[in-house]
Structure formats: structure tokens, C-alpha cells
């Protein structure tokens, strides 16, 4: 958005210009009262929504310390004592430790892959003229608005035929492929804003194209890489649909799948407190990371939509 401070163009076609809304100057007492009422009202609503957001999360944390009978008997009561054994059980018996490890491996691999491959493609598309440039760019961008589920049916068999079904590296490759559209879109825009003169100077000094990219351009693109990296990290960490289809082996489950599996199996196992401990275990690291890197996370997640 442009922020040139011209005062003239107020909404023209959408009805009355601002100047015609009200004209009487002597409204001070009424306005003051209105302000107070509105202020109280807006605060009330804002507080209410904040409670509605935080409450379920706090409730989950509280429930993870209760035993099974009180979870069902009195959902809102505080735990009689802190049942830390729920957490221990979830971590070992319910395989949360394995799910964590799988998730870390998958997300770690695909995040690095996405950033490296995405920035390579974006750099070439942003900085070089060649026949087919536009076509390839729009091929990538198109992936953002297509329903992934449509591709998932044949994808299952593509992955299966390559022997990559139910493997960590197979999942990594698929994650990278499906993260590329947004990554390329975002980073292409970012590389376009970087000055050309630095790269040209490096090139004149005898650096090759790839050396210019890795030693000059990538460090310059760091803010963009951080934003898009956070975006992809959260997307991949929280991914549910892709692993549900492509990763059905219980030993290879990632966190989201594992938790859902756990919830389903509680129908006959009945360890609900362990499940809640697992849920909170999966929630806390992301929430903690968000609170620490709050500014960057918000920037990373909203940057794409503001373009």
C-alpha cells in the first residue's frame, strides 16, 4: 500500500464524501458520552473474545494434570493434585516421543529444502530474462489456489510407485513440493526489491552466478528468508492432510496424526488424561516459540496476504 500523504482522495464512489457526514460543531457533550459508552463496550467485547481464546487452552493445560474420572466427572474443577504421571505416560507409552522425533525430522528436512530450492527458483525468476520465465512463475503461483486434495489421489500412487510411501524422506520431498508455490511467490517479490548494483559489482569482479547468489544475494535476502521460513515452519509443523494420506504407518506418524490416532484409540484404551498431556505437549513449544518470536511470526504469516 502507498502511504503518500495526500489528503484529497476520500472515498468518492461509495457515497457521501466525508465532509458531508455531519456539520454541526457544538456536539462536544454528546460526543464525550458516546465515547465513554463505546469505550466500555469495545473493551467488554475485546476482553470477552480474549477469554474465549485463552479459556480452551488453559482448560486443556488444566485437564492434562487431572485423572480420568475427574476429567469426565467435573470438567471445570481444578485437579485434586498435579498428576505429572499423565505426562510421563504420554511421552513414553503413547509414543509422543517418537511422534516428536518424526515431526522434527520431517519439518527440519523440508524447511531447509524449501528455503534452498525456493530461493534458487525465486532468484532466477526474479532476476533473469529468459523465454518461459513468466510461464514457470505462474505455474508455481497457480499451486496456491488449487485444492490440494484433487492432486492427492494420484499423488498417493506416484509416491507409492517410487517406493516413497510411509518414509520420512518421501514426506519431506512432498512437503517441499507443496511449500514451493508460496515460497517462490514471496521470495520472487523479495528478490525484485533488492538492488541490482551489488550483484553486478560482484559479477564484474569475477564471481560466478552461483557464487554471487550464495555469497551476496542470500545474505541480503535474510529478512525475507526468515519471514517465509516461519510461515513454512508453522505450516509444515501443523500439517495434517498430507501425512494423513501419504504416511499411514503408525511408526512414522507425525505429531498431529499421532494425536488424532491417540484420540481414536482412547475409545477402548481409556487413557484420556494421557491424551490431554500429549495435546498440551504438542501445543506448548509452538506457543512458547510464538511468544518469544512474536513480531517475526506475525510478520511472516501476514506478509504474504498484504502483498
Amino acid at each position: 500500500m502507498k502511504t503518500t500523504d495526500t489528503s484529497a482522495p476520500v472515498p468518492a464512489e461509495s457515497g457521501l464524501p466525508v465532509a458531508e457526514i455531519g456539520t454541526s460543531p457544538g456536539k462536544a457533550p454528546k460526543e464525550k458520552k458516546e465515547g465513554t459508552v463505546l469505550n466500555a463496550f469495545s473493551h467488554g467485547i475485546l476482553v470477552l473474545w480474549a477469554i474465549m481464546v485463552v479459556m480452551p487452552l488453559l482448560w486443556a493445560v488444566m485437564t492434562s494434570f487431572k485423572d480420568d474420572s475427574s476429567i469426565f466427572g467435573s470438567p471445570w474443577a481444578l485437579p485434586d493434585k498435579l498428576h505429572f504421571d499423565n505426562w510421563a505416560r504420554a511421552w513414553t507409552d503413547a509414543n509422543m516421543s517418537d511422534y516428536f522425533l518424526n515431526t522434527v525430522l520431517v519439518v527440519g528436512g523440508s524447511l531447509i529444502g524449501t528455503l534452498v530450492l525456493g530461493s534458487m527458483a525465486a532468484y532466477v525468476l526474479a532476476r533473469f530474462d529468459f523465454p518461459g520465465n513468466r510461464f514457470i512463475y505462474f505455474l508455481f503461483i497457480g499451486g496456491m489456489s488449487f485444492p490440494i486434495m484433487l492432486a492427492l489421489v494420484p499423488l498417493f500412487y506416484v509416491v507409492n510407485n517410487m517406493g516413497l510411501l510411509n518414509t520420512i524422506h518421501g514426506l519431506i520431498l512432498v512437503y517441499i513440493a507443496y511449500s514451493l508455490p508460496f515460497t517462490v511467490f514471496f521470495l520472487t517479490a523479495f528478490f525484485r526489491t533488492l538492488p541490482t548494483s551489488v550483484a553486478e559489482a560482484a559479477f564484474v569482479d569475477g564471481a560466478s552466478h552461483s557464487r554471487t547468489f550464495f555469497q551476496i544475494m542470500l545474505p541480503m535476502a535474510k529478512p525475507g528468508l526468515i519471514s517465509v521460513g516461519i510461515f513454512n515452519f508453522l505450516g509444515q509443523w501443523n500439517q495434517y492432510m498430507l501425512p494423513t494420506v501419504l504416511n499411514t504407518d503408525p511408526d512414522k506418524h507425525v505429531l498431529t496424526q499421532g494425536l488424532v490416532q491417540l484420540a481414536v484409540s482412547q475409545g477402548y484404551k481409556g487413557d484420556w488424561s494421557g491424551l490431554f498431556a500429549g495435546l498440551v505437549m504438542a501445543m506448548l513449544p509452538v506457543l512458547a516459540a510464538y511468544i518469544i518470536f512474536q513480531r517475526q511470526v506475525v510478520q511472516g504469516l501476514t506478509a504474504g496476504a498484504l502483498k
Partner: protein
Amino acid sequence: MQHGKYRFIVGFLAVPLGLYGLFVVWPFIQSIYYSFTDWTGLSPEFKMVGFDNYKRMLHDEIFWKSLQHSLLFALVLPLVTLALALFFAFMINVGGRRRRGGPVISGVRGSSFYKIVYFFPQVLSIAIVSLLFAFAYNPDSGAINSLLRGIGLDSLQPLWLGDPSLALWCVMAVLVWSTVGFFVVLFSAGMASIPTDLYEAALLDGADRIATFFRITLPLLWDTVQSGWVYMGILALGAESFAVVQIMTTGPGGPDYSTTVMVLYVYQKAFRDGQAAYATTIGVALLVVTLAFAAVVMRLGRRERLEF
């Protein structure tokens, strides 16, 4: 910069493009082709059947239900979510009390606190959120009904996800809950870039807050609202609705198909019923709906771009 230019371009594009082509573009093309076959997905043999799958789809009652539900998702969810988010964002950024000597327009006290808290659900996996709310909705021991009992509303104990007329709304409420915060933050950023002298002029002319919102904030934020609308609609048609419905509802998609959405129906046909070809047919319908939705929103929402 000509030296080795093409070799460099090919070298840099080959791997990303190959991966993308193999795992994204190629399956998309294949699935359109499969929708004209009788492929089960279980055996490698299949033959062309022309438009048979499409004819079958038009007579499939469950398909029409799922289409109806998906359309409802695409219309209601963005409307409710964006309206709530605009309201909150306006309150946070412009709704504050005017203090003497302070800026003309100010947010409420603690505005950054609200923005942090509202954003919480956005960083959580939709799968985790769904699991949590599935417990909360439990009619006997769930948090919501026992809260209702706690405040004396013993007669009001809905079955929530077990009630065919309520289940779909329960699912939508969860999606609203988890996405509002994102748009609050997004719109707040947009509102912050609106020059304050516009607000000052409006206030000098005696405009109240409601007029300020509809005459200044909303028109100047329109581009962001519109792209948010498309973004939310695509989410509501695709991955997000799959996760909530698949995890929360009985069946999944029940009770009595009251929550089946298109994306879930594709999944069930392909991976539960062994009807891969028919599943891709529904998938193609989903693609058409998604693209039509985006086109309609872009067209209806088109207006003169305001530069400021």
C-alpha cells in the same frame, strides 16, 4: 552478465521445478484424466468410460449435500470471520478513548496484548484445535455443557456434534475461532497505514465512529479485505475444513452426512471406498467451485483502487 547464463538458469531451476512438476503439477493433470476412467485405485487396470463418473455425480445425493455444505462454508465463514475481525481490529486501533493532549485516534489500552492473544489459535495445528473442541462439545462430560449446567441452564443441553441440525454450525464455529485472530492482526497492520489526518478531518466534521468506520476505514482497507476473503474461502473449501470435519465429526461427516464437505468426500471415496476415479471427479468439481468462488469475489469486490 551473459557468460554461462543459461547453464546457471537451468541448473538452478531444474531441481525445484522437477520436484514441483512431479509431485504437484503431474498429479493434478493425472487426476483430471482419471476422472474419465473407471480406475479403482486398487488395481492398475482401468478403461475409459467417458462422462460416466460425471453423470453418476449429478445423481449422487451425498455429493449434492457435500457441495451444499462446502458452499455454505465458503459463504458464511469468510463473512463471519472477516466481520468479527474488522470489528475487533477497529476497536483495537481506533476505538480508544480520546485523551486530552493525546493523538486524535488511538487504540484501546492494551491493544498489543489483544493482538498477541488473538493470534494464539493461528500458530496451533488445526488438528489439535479440532481435538480440543471435540472434547468441549461432548454432550455428557464436555466443557460447554457442564458450563451450561454450572450456570443453571440444566434444560439447555444440546447434543452439539451429535445433532444433525447443529453439527455443521459447531464445526464452522471452530474454524471461526481459529482464524479470526489472523485477520485481526492483518487488518490492524492495514489500519495502521491509513494516514491519521483523514481521521482528524472526519472527526472535525463531527463524524462518529460508525461513520468513520464505513466511510474511511473500510474503503481504504478494501483491497486487504478482498484478498482476505479469497484466502479464507480457499481455506474453507480445502485443507482446513478437511481437518475439522474429519477429526471432530462422527463418521466422519455425520451424523447422517450433515457435515460431509467436498474435500472429505473426495478423501473417503478414494481411500476408504476404493473408487479413485470417482473421487477425482468430485475433486474436479471442487476445483471448479474454488476457481469460481475466487473469480466471483474478485469481480464483485472490484472497485476503483484508492491511493492514499
